[in-house]
Each structure stands twice: as structure tokens, then as C-alpha cells.
């Protein structure tokens, strides 16, 4: 048997060890040697403050009573942590940027720095945590009584008191060293991490001993497990409820928020905790069920399952192991109490005591550091009061209730913060009034359905649960509005959460947030989109640098305030003196102060010395609409880039067109030059001959003059043709089309070329006259086309050739084939002959510069028709096509005479069409 002196000795030694570790870590941190103090491992271990005395002792008790139900208390945290990317990451980022000091601070800051909300959350947290702290004291004293039955030495209550006192001292010493609650408590955190290791080692050691020492291996242990412990009924509504509650609690419990968000120094640590913390929980839970099953089997039926962890080793005579287990339980309970009181005292002092004190001292003289000392005093006092409350609750409630149920009541209490918290960081529309109303309603229902019934015995109202207040059955706390047959926890959760969420959503939809709320909502919800916490100042305020400095001094103390202002001035590029009190500075200062006193108090205090507070509506609108803007902006960006690509493609095309046109123009000019120089050469040469040789025989002189005259006419004709083609190609003029009879036009063309054809001996055959050969055209221009074609035949078909003119009416149009029996045109040249100056390229042997064919084709296209050279075995067959009046093509040509030729231009990248038919004008030799 272990003596109580030994127990006291061991515990005291352990406490001394904790003090030592915390002291050394703090000293190390203050010397700036943070290295492993800031490692993700320490961070993860400190999060395991989730596992309290309740876990250490209560989980086994729960497993002995309800089987795997205890696992649900860990599935929630596991899901939340492996889902860190959803929620925790955002909380941590917000916490860092906004210098959040507690969960109450976060909620109040989000909802327009409302202190009322902060007070509500604080009260809720204190009310929910007090039983929880009592629970730890209970588990501690319970564990002592296992070793030291009441007849021996220390009375259990006395133990509870001294434990509470010791914890208060430790917390005050290491938890209120800095005024800045946002700064990390290295000493405490390191001590907590050590305790985390100890409790894990202790539980695993007991588990190994139980399974392999007492139980005879896992198979043996589970062999005679009561089947009820694994029944499917264990995974119903209660399983769901507890998972939800534990998931909510791991975020909302003040101490969890403290270690996860406030004490976080590096977001990447969260990535490690995301898997390491679930792993830690897995290891803690691994042996819970075997211990419970073995305890049920080996220990007498009346034994308290909550104490199996201790009683099993004791029963087996393993005193050392039992002591290790005791230290493990001690660690679990003390770490929870320490962190919880730090978190709660920060909340109480920042959100309740500070505002009251500020109001009281509003008009008094302000001395340097007064707020700071006030803060420290109020925090220390809060710690003492909180522990006292816990102790009182423990004394009053007695130790009848199972550990697990007290813990779950606390969970359900803090879960009332969750809706406002989640909505706060994901939904801009959630408003302050809604959060206040929702949290208050949820809180009230929780108190009524869960907290009050837990006091039933002490309240002296035994009929309340059974009959409801004043005998109203509908108001029975465990069967509200007749909802019966549900276990009290699920029942309470259902009502409180439903009402909470409904009120939050409903009120948000009908209330209008203030500008400050909207600003904060934007900063919180879009925290990942904002590059910095304050991308410019949103709040316009005026204050003097001196006032701001005085304020900083009051809160932070002279030395830190001086450091802060030097840094601020340096950031503004000033080498000495106070920084400029611009909006950005005031905002930043407020944020720094918020790290000490919370957002609401900092805002109020800055508000006392700054005047003319307005929220820059422009800035507000700009960030309020930022999401929409980002979406729209990226959309526009995409569109723009697409447009740019299109434009670039168009430009490339246009550039190529230009180059092409340039090349075409050069070629055209070269051709024109050639065609002009050729007749000019003859003219110049012969005129020189005539001038220099006055004695030429008259006959020869006349011949030379004839040549000069011919070549001059050729020159003139060439210029006319170039101008005509330019005119046709420009399509600037709308052509007036009239209905003409094709046969008449042919008559005219034939008579105009009569002399020419007669001279060359060309025989012309004409198809039978069509009676209905009406087309839309211009009589003269159409005649010009046929004249060109006939002269062409005269030139190329050779002497005594035959020419056949065939008119054929087709669907929608009329064609005229002009066929000769000359040498024809090689297939390869069939399109090229319509190009300008084709002759110059050695195509279609001819003598003149002739632009006849290209001109003719342009004319036909202006009529909506076309001129083509048909494939034929012998001779050349030119086909003239004209649409009939009233057809679409004709109308199009009439409406927009240019259109016929767009087709021609579009055919390509070919140079403008024109070709060689030289002396096309009639009557020229």
C-alpha cells in the first residue's frame, strides 16, 4: 500500500518539476532562443490538453458502461483536425492577423467589435467551464481517495482545495507574465507539452500492462467482453450527437481555442497537428476499451469504472505503475485547469472587468501603464475566482455524477458559440444582433434542458424533471414540447442548436449590419483574399500622435510602447520622433492593443482619444464587393486575353494582307512601268530618227509617224484601262442596273466589231435568238465585255478562225459561251489570264498590255454575274454568266453593287484579278 505521504511527495515533486520546466522555458524564450519551443511538436502536444482527467479516467468508465461510445468524443476532433483546411486554417489566419486573444474576442471582433457579444460569450464560457474545472478537481481528489481511503490522513475536500490553490499559483506565475495575451506563454505551453507526454506514457503503460500482464493478450481480453458494448445501437443518435459536440468543443472550448489559435505562432504547425493530434488521440484511446473490459472482468462489481486505470494496477500490486497512472491523471487534470483558467481569465478581464473599469475611470487622470497593471491584476484575480468557482461547484454538486456526463454538458454549452463562429467566418451576411440573439437563445435552452437538470438534487425541485415547471408537461426539461424518448443530451442539442441556427439565420436576414460590422465581416470571411490584415485604412479617425502614444503607454507599459512607436515611425520612413497619426497607423495601433485587451476594448479606448470616426464607405464597398469583383475581374481578364489573342491574330492577318498588298503594288507598278515604257520606247526612238534624219524618204517617214501614232494611242488606251480597272475595283460607286435584253446587247457588240472581224476573217456563228433574255446590267458595259471577248478571239484564235456564241437560259441565270477554235489556253493558265498584265509573265501570248479580261470580269461581277474560262479540249470557251432579274444574286448586285466582287477579292490571296487580252477596244488594229 502506498502511503499518502508518498503520494503527496510524488505529486509535489512533479509540481516542482513542472514549475522548473515552465521557468526554464520562459527564460529561454525571453533570451530569444525559441528553436524547439516553437516546434510543431510542442504545438501538437499542447493541443492535447483536450485530453483531460475526464479522458484519463472517464473514458474507461464510459467504455465500461457504454462500450465504444467514448470514441465519439474523439471522432469529432479527428474530423475537425484532418479537415483543418476547411476551418481551423481560417481561424488561425484570422487569429494571427487580427491579434485575437480569445474566442470571445474573435466573435466580438467579427461582429463589429461588439462588447456585449464578448460579454455573452465570456459568461457562457465561464458557466460551461466551471463544472468542467470542477470535474478535474473531482477526478483528482477521486484518484487520491483510491490511494488514500478517507480514514487515512487527508480529507478529500482538503486535497481539492490545495490542488486548486496550487494550480492558481502556477497559472498566475506563468500565465500572466505578459500583458499581451496574444503573445505565446512559452513556459506554460512547454509544461503542458510535457504533461501531454506524461499522460500518454502513463495510459499506454497501464494499457500494455493490463492487456499483456493481466489480460493475457488482446484476444483473451476481448474474449469475454459483454456483447452490449459493441451493439449497433451504440451508433445511433447519441453517437452522432457526441461526435458533433466534441467536434464543436475542440474549436469552441476556451482552452482549445487558446492553444490552437491564440498560441499558434506558425500556420504550418497546424499542418503537422492535423495528423499528429489525431494520432495522439488514437494512441490515448487504443487501450481504453481493453482496460474497461478487463476491469469489468477482474474487479468486484461495485468498483467505480472511472477509476479502473488506478485500481487495476493496484489490484495487481503494481504500485509503481499505479503511481505513474496517478501522475498521468494528475497531468491531464492540471494541464486542463491551467490552460482553461488562462483563457477564461483573459476573457473575463478583457471583456468584463476592463470595460467596467474604463467606464469608471473615464474622466480620471491617466497614468502610464495604469491599464497594464489593471489588466494584470484583473487577470490574476480572475484566475483565483475561476478556480474558486470550480472548487465551490465541486463541493456543492458532490461527486455523484459520472465524469463523462459533466464533460458533455460543458461541451453542449460551448457548442452554442459554434453557429455564430462558423457563420462569422464563412458568411458575410451574419449580423451582430443575430449572433447575440442566437447565442443567447442557445445558451438559455442549454441551461434549461441540460445544466439545470444536472443540479436537480441540489435545487430542491424534484418534480421539475418529471412534471415540468408548474406542472406544465410541455416544458419538461428533458422532453421539451413533448419530444420524448430521446436521451437528454441529444434532446438538448437538438433544441438548442435548432433554435440557435434558426435565430442566427432568421435575424441576420432581417437586420442591417453597421458599417464596422460589414468591414469586419469582409476582413474575416475573405481573410485569404486580403493580402494583409489592413490593406489600407478603412476607418477614418483623427488623433494626435501624443495621445496615441499615451494610450499605448497606459496599456502596454512605457518600454513596450516606446519600442512599438519607434517601429511604427521607422515603417513610415521617419528616423526620429513620433509617427504620423494617419488612418493606417491608428488602425495598426488598435490591432496591437487588441492583442492585449481584445478588439472591443481596444476599439473603445482608441475611440476615446480619436475623433470623427467614419468608415471609409468607398473602401468598405470595395472590400465588401471584393469577392464579386475578383470573380468578375478574372472573368474579364479571361475575356480580355481572348480578345487580345483575337486582335493579335487579326493584326497578323492584316499585316500579311498589307505585305501582300505591298508586294502586289510593287509588282503592279513594275508591270505598269513596263507597259508604259514599251510604247514610249518606240515613240522616242522613231521621233528621234525622224528629227535627226530630215532626209528620210517621205514614205518611210510616214510609216514611222504611223508607228508613233499607234503607240501613242496604245499608251492612251493603256492609261484608260488602268483607270477603268481601278474604278471597277474600287467599287465606290453604286451601279445603276437596268433590265436589258441580252440579244440586243450581242447585236450591238457584233456590229461594233464588224470591221475587225471582217478584216481577220473570223467567222461568227450565233445560236438561235432567245425570246426571253432579260438580264439586269448596264447596256454599254455589258457590250464592252462582249467586244473584249470578240477582239480577243480575233487576236488569239488565228486567221480564219470560227467563233460560236451560244446563249443558254439556265435556272436563275443566263449564260453566254464565247467559243473559238484557236489554240486555246493551257489549263494551268486558266485563272491567270484574268490577272493584270498576265502577258508580261509569259502567259497567253499577246502583244498589248491588255487589261481587257480583268476589266471584263470586274464588270460581270459588278452585275452579280461572272466571267470564266471553261475547260475545253480545243479552242477557248469564255462563259459569261448573268443572274436573271429578281433572283437573289441580281438583287444583291443591285442593292450593293460592290458585293459581286467581294467574292472575287475574297477568293483570295491572289493578286487582284486582271488579265491579258490586249487591244481590247474595238476598231484598233
Amino acid at each position, binding site marked *: 500500500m502506498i502511503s499518502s505521504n508518498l503520494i503527496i511527495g510524488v505529486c509535489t515533486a512533479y509540481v516542482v518539476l513542472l514549475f522548473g520546466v515552465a521557468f526554464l522555458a520562459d527564460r529561454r524564450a525571453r533570451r530569444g532562443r525559441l528553436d524547439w519551443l516553437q516546434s510543431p511538436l510542442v504545438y501538437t502536444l499542447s493541443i492535447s490538453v483536450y485530453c483531460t482527467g475526464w479522458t484519463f479516467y472517464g473514458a474507461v468508465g464510459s467504455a465500461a458502461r457504454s462500450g465504444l461510445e467514448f470514441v465519439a468524443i474523439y471522432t469529432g476532433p479527428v474530423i475537425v483536425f484532418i479537415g483543418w483546411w476547411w476551418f481551423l486554417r481560417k481561424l488561425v489566419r484570422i487569429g494571427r492577423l487580427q491579434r485575437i486573444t480569445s474566442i470571445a474576442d474573435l466573435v466580438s471582433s467579427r461582429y463589429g467589435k461588439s462588447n456585449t457579444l464578448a460579454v455573452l460569450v465570456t459568461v457562457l464560457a465561464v458557466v460551461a467551464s466551471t463544472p468542467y474545472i470542477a470535474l478535474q478537481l473531482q477526478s483528482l481528489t477521486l484518484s487520491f481517495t483510491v490511494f488514500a481511503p478517507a480514514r487515512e490522513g487527508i480529507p478529500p475536500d482538503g486535497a481539492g482545495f490545495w490542488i486548486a490553490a496550487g494550480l492558481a499559483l502556477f497559472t498566475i506565475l506563468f500565465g500572466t507574465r505578459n500583458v499581451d495575451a496574444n503573445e505565446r506563454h512559452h513556459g506554460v505551453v512547454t509544461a503542458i507539452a510535457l504533461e501531454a507526454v506524461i499522460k500518454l506514457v502513463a495510459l499506454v503503460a497501464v494499457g500494455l500492462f493490463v492487456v499483456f500482464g493481466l489480460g493475457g493478450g488482446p484476444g483473451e481480453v476481448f474474449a469475454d467482453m459483454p456483447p452490449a458494448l459493441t451493439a449497433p445501437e451504440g451508433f445511433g443518435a447519441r453517437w452522432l450527437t457526441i461526435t458533433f459536440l466534441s467536434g464543436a468543443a475542440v474549436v469552441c472550448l476556451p482552452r482549445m481555442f487558446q492553444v490552437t489559435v491564440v498560441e499558434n505562432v506558425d500556420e504550418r504547425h497546424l499542418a503537422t497537428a492535423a495528423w499528429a493530434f489525431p494520432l495522439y488521440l488514437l494512441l490515448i484511446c487504443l487501450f481504453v476499451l481493453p482496460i474497461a473490459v478487463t476491469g469489468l472482468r477482474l474487479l468486484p462489481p461495485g468498483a467505480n469504472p472511472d477509476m479502473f486505470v488506478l485500481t487495476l494496477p493496484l489490484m495487481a500490486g503494481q504500485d509503481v505503475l499505479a503511481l505513474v497512472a496517478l501522475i498521468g491523471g494528475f497531468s491531464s487534470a492540471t494541464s486542463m485547469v491551467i490552460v482553461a483558467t488562462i483563457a477564461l481569465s483573459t476573457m473575463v478581464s478583457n471583456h468584463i472587468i476592463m470595460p467596467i473599469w474604463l467606464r469608471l475611470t473615464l474622466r480620471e487622470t491617466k497614468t502610464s501603464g495604469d491599464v497594464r497593471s489593471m489588466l494584470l491584476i484583473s487577470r490574476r484575480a480572475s484566475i483565483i475566482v475561476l478556480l474558486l468557482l470550480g472548487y465551490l461547484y465541486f463541493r456543492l454538486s458532490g461527486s455523484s455524477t459520472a465524469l463523462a456526463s459533466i464533460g458533455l454538458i460543458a461541451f453542449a454549452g460551448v457548442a452554442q458559440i459554434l453557429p455564430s463562429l462558423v457563420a462569422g467566418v464563412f458568411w458575410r451576411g451574419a449580423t451582430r444582433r443575430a449572433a447575440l440573439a442566437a447565442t443567447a437563445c442557445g445558451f438559455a435552452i442549454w441551461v434549461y434542458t441540460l445544466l439545470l437538470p444536472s443540479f436537480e438534487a441540489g435545487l430542491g425541485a424534484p418534480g421539475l424533471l418529471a412534471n415540468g415547471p408548474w406542472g406544465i408537461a410541455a416544458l419538461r426539461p428533458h422532453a421539451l414540447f413533448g419530444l420524448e424518448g430521446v436521451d437528454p443530451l441529444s434532446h438538448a442539442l437538438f433544441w438548442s442548436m435548432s433554435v440557435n441556427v434558426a435565430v442566427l439565420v432568421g435575424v441576420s436576414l432581417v437586420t442591417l449590419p453597421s458599417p464596422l460590422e460589414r468591414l469586419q465581416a469582409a476582413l474575416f470571411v475573405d481573410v485569404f483574399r486580403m493580402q494583409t490584415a489592413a490593406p489600407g485604412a478603412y476607418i477614418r479617425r483623427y488623433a494626435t500622435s501624443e495621445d496615441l502614444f499615451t494610450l499605448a503607454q497606459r496599456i502596454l507599459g512605457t518600454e513596450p510602447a516606446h519600442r512599438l512607436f519607434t517601429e511604427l515611425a521607422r515603417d513610415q520612413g521617419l528616423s526620429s520622433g513620433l509617427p504620423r497619426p494617419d488612418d493606417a497607423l491608428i488602425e495598426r495601433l488598435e490591432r496591437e492593443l487588441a492583442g492585449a485587451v481584445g478588439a472591443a476594448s481596444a476599439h473603445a479606448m482608441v475611440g476615446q482619444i480619436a475623433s470623427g470616426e467614419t468608415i471609409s464607405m468607398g473602401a468598405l464597398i470595395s472590400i465588401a464587393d471584393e469577392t464579386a469583383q475578383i470573380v468578375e475581374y478574372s472573368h474579364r481578364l479571361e475575356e480580355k486575353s481572348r480578345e487580345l489573342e483575337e486582335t493579335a491574330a487579326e493584326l497578323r492577318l492584316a499585316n500579311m494582307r498589307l505585305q501582300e498588298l505591298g508586294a502586289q503594288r510593287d509588282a503592279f507598278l*513594275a508591270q505598269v*512601268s*513596263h*507597259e508604259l*515604257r*514599251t510604247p*514610249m*520606247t*518606240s*515613240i*522616242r*526612238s*522613231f521621233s*528621234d*530618227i525622224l528629227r*535627226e534624219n530630215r532626209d528620210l524618204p517621205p514614205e518611210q517617214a510616214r510609216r514611222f509617224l504611223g*508607228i508613233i501614232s*499607234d*503607240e501613242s494611242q496604245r499608251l492612251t488606251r493603256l492609261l484608260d484601262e488602268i483607270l477603268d480597272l481601278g474604278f471597277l475595283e474600287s467599287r465606290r460607286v453604286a451601279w445603276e442596273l437596268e433590265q436589258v435584253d441580252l440579244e440586243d446587247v450581242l447585236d450591238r457588240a457584233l456590229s461594233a466589231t464588224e470591221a475587225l472581224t471582217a478584216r481577220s476573217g473570223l467567222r461568227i456563228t450565233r445560236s438561235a435568238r432567245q425570246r426571253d433574255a432579260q438580264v439586269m446590267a448596264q447596256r454599254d458595259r455589258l457590250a464592252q465585255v462582249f467586244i473584249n471577248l470578240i477582239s480577243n478571239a480575233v487576236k488569239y484564235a488565228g486567221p480564219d478562225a470560227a467563233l460560236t456564241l451560244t446563249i443558254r437560259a439556265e435556272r436563275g441565270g443566263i449564260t453566254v459561251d464565247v467559243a473559238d477554235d484557236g489554240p486555246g489556253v493551257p489549263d494551268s493558265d486558266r485563272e491567270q489570264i484574268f490577272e493584270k498584265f498576265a*502577258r*508580261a509573265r*509569259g502567259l497567253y*501570248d499577246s*502583244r498589248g498590255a491588255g487589261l481587257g479580261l480583268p476589266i471584263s470580269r470586274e464588270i460581270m461581277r459588278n452585275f452579280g454575274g461572272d466571267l470564266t474560262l471553261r475547260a475545253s479540249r480545243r479552242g477557248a470557251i469564255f462563259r459569261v454568266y448573268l443572274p436573271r432579274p429578281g433572283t437573289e444574286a441580281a438583287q444583291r448586285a443591285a442593292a450593293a453593287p460592290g458585293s459581286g466582287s467581294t467574292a472575287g477579292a475574297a477568293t483570295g490571296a491572289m493578286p487582284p484579278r486582271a488579265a491579258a487580252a490586249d487591244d481590247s477596244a474595238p476598231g484598233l488594229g
Partner: protein
Amino acid sequence: MTRRVLIIEDEPNIIESLAWLLGREGFDVTSEQDGGAALDRIARETPDLVILDVMLPHCDGFEILRAIRAGKDTARTPVIMLTARGQARDRETAEKLGVDLFITKPFLNSHVVESARRLAARAEP
């Protein structure tokens, strides 16, 4: 000994003026309008001077010049090229191919006649 000149040119009027001018100088003038046929005649007649138009049907003047310079008997035959295109690039091409004189139309009668006389004399030996 009469010097024989072959005019390869597709414009009859220009041939006529050149023939008249050179004939008066005592040249024995023949002409050819078709590029393809011209090559045969050069090979057959081995003229003392060739006057060659750049733009000819069926065969461009540069091809003929290249053939003249490549021919065993005609490699040293003087060649005067006439062009109506007046592009610097043509002159470069012609000079690269070994033309003796490159004249842009319209030409000065005396310039052609004197050049012809000079070049034909050089070909004499």
C-alpha cells in the same frame, strides 16, 4: 566583213527602229520575237552581237543570257540587254550573269548604236 546582230525582242515596232538604226550603221540585222526560238538561232548563227529584251514570251531574257554564256561558241558574244521594267534588281541579275551592257527603255538611239558598234568591234578578232 559585215557584223551580224541578232535582236531578240517581242515588240515589232522596237525591232523595226533598232533594225533601221543598226542597218544604217552597216550591221547585218536579224530579229527573233520568240525566246525559245532565239536560243536555236544564236547557236546556229553565232551573231557578233545580241540585243536582248528581258521580258519575252515563253522564256525570259535572263535564261537566254545564261544559255549564251554557257554555249561554247557564244560564251564571249557581246550582249546588250534592254528592259522596260527598270528595276535595280534586274540590273544586278544581268550583271551577275555577264551582260556587257544593260539599257533601260526608252533608250537614246545614239547610245544603243555606239555601244553596238563598240561591242561588235571588240568581238571582231
